[in-house]
């Protein structure tokens, strides 16, 4: 227990040293309209691709966004780079709300917020030389004088580990890993403060993945770039990001520092996700690792389940889960979870811990005597949180000076 505490403290100081958040996303929503067929195409529903997501990315830090296909992680990334216009919510980058900017106002911001794409084959124009690809942002944004462009391009190619003399070649002359490096060089050209990396390594061969991950590691350390790292590979995210958010059907179900999230996950989905990853170390034991089996597939985001969206596949689901949506509740210094029965594996509570906060009884019916508390959906972490063991609010200060809790 002591060591765990120490870990958490270490994480905290690391975050503090990372400083103020460079990116703050609050209650971000993206609903894509679903059109009817027929003579007049009415909007008959919405794909709730992203539904009220809040998080922070510290300057020079990294937040991982994991989840399965259709969970909205890529859409979130595209919203932050404004490849889509959000339905509602705020995307505050160094205090400026990107969500409210017009495309023209957005242009100068694009210098600071860049994106790396998954597919190194389709994201580079095959008819342009590498030099043209990497220099185009430099020229568009007037970053360097014309006669310095080539030397800057060569410098960038060298930074990402490519031969600077190859600026005249075309993308098809490079391997997948090298193309991903070209994409990274292009993103770096503008010296961004935030890089949104959408599955940057998943299209690459295993041995090449590590090269690219290490490159991103080095770039972050050298240039202090903050990362929003979107991936389905839990191990890669764990390696890269001190803080990780798990998404399911458009919502964040758990967000925490990585030690907590990977070692003591409290949401049954996070637990299932982690236990589903095949582990090389299992070779020493043989056979399949014991795991939480969750059945079926992710439901359609057009018509998500009522209440908790994970309940249709959740081994713990009870009546309350269908009736009331669990709020994303802070349960630790840097740990939030959206579950009525949060707990470490095998230690989930029998009674919903959220009932009193939500003003409902244990079955989720409105409790006449209850007084619902509005938890809101703030991007960061508060100094006080709901202590699961004590069933009451606790705070960072309460441990050292025990009396002044609450």
């Amino acid at each position, binding site marked *: 227990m002591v060591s765990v505490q120490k870990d958490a403290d270490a994480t905290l100081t690391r975050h503090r040293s990372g400083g103020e958040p460079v990116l703050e996303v609050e209650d971000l929503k993206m609903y894509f309209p679903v059109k009817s067929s027929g003579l007049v195409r009415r909007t008959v529903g919405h794909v709730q691709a992203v539904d009220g997501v809040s998080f922070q990315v510290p300057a020079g830090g990294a937040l991982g966004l994991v989840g399965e296909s259709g969970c909205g992680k890529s859409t979130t990334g595209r919203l932050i780079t404004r490849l889509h216009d959000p339905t509602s919510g705020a995307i505050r980058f160094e205090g400026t709300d990107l969500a409210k900017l017009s495309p023209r106002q957005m242009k100068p911001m694009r210098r600071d917020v860049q994106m790396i794409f998954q597919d190194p084959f389709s994201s580079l124009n095959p008819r342009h030389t590498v030099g043209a690809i990497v220099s185009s942002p430099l020229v568009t944004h007037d970053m360097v004088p014309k006669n310095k462009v080539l030397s800057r391009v060569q410098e960038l190619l060298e930074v990402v580990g490519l031969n600077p003399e190859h600026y005249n070649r075309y993308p098809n002359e490079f391997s997948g890993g090298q193309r991903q490096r070209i994409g990274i060089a292009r993103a770096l050209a503008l010296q961004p403060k935030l890089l949104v990396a959408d599955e940057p390594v998943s299209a690459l061969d295993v*041995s090449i993945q590590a090269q690219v991950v290490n490159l991103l590691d080095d770039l972050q350390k050298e240039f202090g770039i903050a990362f929003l790292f979107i991936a389905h590979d*839990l*191990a890669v995210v764990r390696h890269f990001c001190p803080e990780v958010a798990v998404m399911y059907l458009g919502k964040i179900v758990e967000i925490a520092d990585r030690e907590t999230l990977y070692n003591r996950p409290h949401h049954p989905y996070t637990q299932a996700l982690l236990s589903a990853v095949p582990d090389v170390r299992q*070779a*020493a034991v043989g056979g399949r690792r014991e795991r939480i089996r969750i059945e079926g597939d992710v439901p359609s985001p057009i018509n998500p389940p009522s209440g908790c969206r994970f309940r249709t596949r959740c081994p713990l689901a009870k009546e309350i889960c269908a009736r009331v949506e669990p709020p994303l509740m802070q349960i630790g210094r840097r740990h939030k979870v959206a579950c009525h029965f949060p707990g470490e594996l095998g230690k989930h509570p029998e009674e919903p811990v959220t009932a009193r906060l939500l003003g409902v009884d244990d079955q989720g019916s409105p409790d006449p005597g209850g007084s619902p508390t509005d938890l809101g959906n703030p991007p960061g972490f508060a100094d006080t949180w709901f202590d699961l063991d004590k069933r009451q609010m606790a705070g960072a200060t309460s441990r050292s000076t025990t009396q002044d809790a609450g």
Partner: protein
Amino acid sequence: MSTDTGVTTGAAGAAAAGERLLEVEHLTVKFPTADGLVNAVTDLSYGVARGKTLGIVGESGSGKSVSSMAVLGLHDPRRTRIEGSIRVDGQEVIGLSEAKLRRIRGNSAAMIFQDALASLHPFYRVGKQLSEAYAAHHPKASARDARRKAIEMLDLVGIPQPDRRVDDFPHQFSGGMRQRAMIAMGLINDPSLLIADEPTTALDVTVQAQILDLLGDLQREFDSAIIIITHDLGVIAEMADEVLVMYAGRAVEYGATRELLTHPEMPYTWGLLSSVPDVSGDVDARLLPIPGNPPSLLDPPSGCSFHPRCVHRDKVPGDLCTTTIPDLSPGGRGPGHLKRCHLADPERIYATEILPEIAPDLADGAPAAPAAAPTNKEA
């Protein structure tokens, strides 16, 4: 080339050689192209016994898919040069007529592919495609029988309401269900050998877990031999009894899974292990990628094909690595574990240089202790 056709090849890995359902010996596959001859597979030998699973690991271009396609004779003979021997249940496949090959395909040996959406015909109903596979090997079966069999198989692989979903088109299935349907199609004629080529690569982890569980359950039920082709060592560790690691068209390491993954002896295998972060490993450990890129199969490197990317090359005296292809031969750990490497003492290098980097928690204590099992092992 004659250097490595030595004594060692046939008797690889398995204890019970000779009894094996699939026996591949000295398989060489070349594709003549406009740019020259592509050496896709070179002198490859392996086997699988009934009820056992062989995992074949390698990156793109390693020849792992090419070699298994050859088992079903799926290469166009006009565009392929194949040598060696492939015996499925005693029957030699190489040189077999198309008509006889057809009797093996989908019948005694079946194959399922990575991308189930692309691998199912978009214009035919799922049930139709399943019953077609059944009818192909049961010419006397009526259309109704074939359909009943299709529904039965869909039910077996866990598709809800199979009698209704049998009439769906593939695009109406979810990714996981499509892969289940592929498996159902592969197993419909009760094959003794099932080759699964990256069966879960395109799937989400929770669905991947379901599919892998399903494959395991079905294997126990049908006692079939399974070859699972993947780049994911985690999948291999949990599914395979034996592992074959391929690089540039050759087997570079071959042995029982537990043995090979706990005491790997070939630097390429080390590279694979160290370039993938572990869900329970040390977060500050740096990944040790394999430098460079996989070699061209048109013009493979001289000597050991891995030598241009091998960081342990300097530990081999002289220029052996660049001039001579090492034999696939037993290392220091007995005849069941073959490796293609000139390193004299790989075990020591692994224990002192590799393991501390990739799994410091395992390095000091007993090497193969199952104590390394993941923290979240309950439930």
